[in-house]
């Protein structure tokens, strides 16, 4: 998959996610629109069994995670050819409620080019194939959250 010099940022980081800086890195002179998704630690969850979260502990298989982020970016470009820049960033470590943990951003010349769908695809796909895990720690103890997706060989 050629990305023809378009900016692609992918990283597993321990510091704060800086939306302003990441957006600037994927903005070209031809860019007019960006769709950005961020996830954050929920301190109170109401869907399913109601629960409180003290913090989440994130862990990644870093080199593989970064390769899979690159793959997600390639898949986005293959589906939405108008996308210009892509940023995919996961923060790891101990993260407290309200803290942004993940960012997917896609830029394009115009907003009707699929940038919203591309960002949505990016976060869905990250949650399927990028090797990152979170342990939920509450006043009652901790448990690892397990995903539901089983990637095929070579996926």
């Amino acid at each position: 998959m050629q990305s023809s010099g378009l900016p692609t940022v992918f990283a597993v980081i321990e510091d704060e996610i800086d939306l302003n800086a990441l957006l600037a890195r994927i903005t070209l002179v031809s860019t007019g629109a960006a769709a950005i998704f961020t996830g954050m630690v929920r301190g109170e969850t109401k869907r399913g069994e109601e629960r409180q979260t003290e913090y989440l502990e994130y862990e990644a298989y870093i080199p593989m995670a970064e390769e899979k982020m690159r793959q997600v970016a390639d898949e986005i470009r293959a589906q939405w050819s108008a996308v210009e820049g892509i940023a995919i960033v996961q923060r790891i470590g101990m993260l407290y409620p309200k803290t942004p943990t993940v960012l997917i951003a896609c830029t394009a010349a115009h907003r009707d080019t699929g940038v919203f769908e591309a960002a949505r695809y990016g976060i869905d796909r990250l949650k399927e194939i990028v090797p990152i895990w979170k342990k939920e720690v509450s006043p009652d103890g901790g448990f690892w959250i397990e995903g539901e997706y089983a990637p095929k060989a070579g996926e």
Partner: protein
Amino acid sequence: MNRVKLLFFAALRERMGTRTLDLDLPAGLTVHGLKARFLDEYPEMSESMKSVLIAVNREYASDETLIPLNAEIGLFPPVSGG
């Protein structure tokens, strides 16, 4: 012999009590064979291995995947990032 490096993550890492394990395998072994051999040595991991994902040199593998020489093999639960 084929010396491979196993890397454990998340719940598997915690249950193993280690992040890495070097293992000597016979040449020509598949992922399926590796799993059997690993469970022989670590039967206490059988529950964790039921939903395990295995990456060989950072690519998702199936039971039929052949394990190359000196492979890096990741063992982990279905991912839950984001």
